[in-house]
């Protein structure tokens, strides 16, 4: 099974911020969407999720920061039940213990509201919610930028491990090619609202074609360490 979308586009106050774009995403794929800030990555992510949803696919979106995902006036339990209900599941039927275990948030008090949890826990909770019912695709928009590095790295590792043997495809949106390169096998490079290059991670790192990809590749990390 493959996910297809075509003709995704977006404009804001008369200016095109996303040129018509078509995508194909294979089952279980690991895709990175990289580009400088303002290149239209998040817009494409939103358009993709909204389009697949209208196609009747189950897709999940994890925004950059938990502040953009959780209502501070509502308890964690409420958010969870709401997500279950939105997927047509009965309350308590999603495998919460398994997901919480996988993301290491089993100890969290669900009666608390989001701000009663640490940001790292909140972010993992949001990811766990996104994984209810094993969606066809999970889109992660800069999932690590609101977190401290240690927590961010652990969260990405836990997510990787959880998705390992599953059909859920993952799209990682980030400005950081260094991060994407460690997590995905295919990359799409965005510039000025357009995908300018699509290739395997290996190719983009070693043989970037466009100036955008070359710049990202050249600046992908601070240093190579002899370990």
């Amino acid at each position: 099974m493959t996910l297809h979308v075509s003709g995704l586009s977006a404009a804001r106050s008369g200016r095109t911020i996303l040129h018509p774009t078509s995508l194909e995403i294979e089952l279980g794929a690991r895709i990175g969407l990289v580009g400088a800030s303002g290149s239209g990555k998040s817009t494409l992510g939103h358009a993709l999720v909204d389009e697949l949803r209208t196609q009747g696919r189950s897709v999940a979106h994890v925004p950059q920061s938990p502040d953009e995902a959780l209502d501070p006036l509502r308890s964690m339990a409420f958010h969870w039940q709401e997500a279950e209900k939105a997927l047509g599941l009965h309350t308590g039927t999603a495998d919460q213990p398994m997901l919480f275990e996988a993301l290491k948030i089993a100890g969290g008090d669900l009666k608390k509201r989001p701000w009663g949890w640490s940001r790292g826990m909140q972010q993992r909770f949001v990811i766990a919610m996104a994984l209810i019912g094993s969606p066809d695709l999970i889109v992660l928009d800069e999932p690590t930028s609101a977190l401290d590095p240690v927590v961010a790295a652990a969260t990405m590792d836990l997510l990787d491990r959880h998705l390992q043997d599953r059909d859920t495809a993952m799209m990682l949106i980030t400005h950081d090619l260094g991060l994407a390169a460690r997590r995905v096998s295919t990359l799409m490079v965005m510039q000025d609202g357009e995908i300018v290059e699509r290739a395997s991670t290996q190719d983009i790192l070693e043989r970037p074609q466009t100036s955008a990809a070359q710049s990202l590749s050249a600046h992908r990390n601070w240093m190579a360490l002899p370990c």
Partner: protein
Amino acid sequence: MIGTVAGLILRAIVVLSGTAIITFALLWNAPGDPAQAIAMARFDALLTEDVIDQVREEVGLNTSFWSAFVDWIAPLLVLDFGYSSVTGRPVGPDLWVAITYTFPLAVMALAIGLAISLPLAIIATKNPGGMLDRLAVATASMGTAIPAFWLGLLLILLFAVQLNWLPAMGARTPVHSILPAMTLGFGIAASLTRIIRSGILEARDQPFLPAIRRRGVPVRAIGRDHIAPHAAVPVVTVVGLELAFLLEGLVVVEVIFGRPGLGTFLTSAIVARDFPHVQAVVVLVALVFVTVNLIIDLIYKRIDPRIGEHDA
């Protein structure tokens, strides 16, 4: 939680004591001789100094400020409002009668205000800036600008004089409270509509709403579970403030419609310089205010426990 409730109650006590002292000081220093006024009201004639002095002593107006204050506050603390300095009858029962006329009217007015403003604001915000929205805002602005005494007379003219549907004056039956409640309710509806409208619009800008929509939560559920609680915070504040407006409006409306409620009770007491009657109303109003504010603070705590907490 217990700590915050205790803090809120302590604040209420401070407000009440302050009100008591200031009220007493204002009346104590009011121009004119209250003893003379009381005597005149009681005996309805020009009087000699002796009789006035006798009255002065009788109602305790000849002592120092603080001893008079203590004499005054002690019975109030056990809700004993004393005797009318005009009629000599106990204040309590008369006050209670006034309350039984005013309280239902206030509740009705608030209910009418909410019943009009809530749907109006929701309809208006369906399409912000659209025809319906602009119409609602314009109506609300007009409503705030119309004074209660004018609206009251207009309603009497229409429903009592022209159509002869409703009684204009008095308070014998519940039907008598419909016109005054409408007069007050329209004013409340006008200002509440604007607040609820802007509350809803602001709540819609919350950063997490797009994510919840993308989770597949239906629009109606988002409105009920996420926008409503956020919009409720400013609305609760204003409903509390509306109470002030309500008390002010009650005085005017009760006089217009000839209802023997608290407003009438207060105005006639002021005219007659009936010290115990005035203070009973003031104490009652302060009590109501403080209680309402306490309730509002507790509702805040329920909606958003972070409100009022001082953390870095």
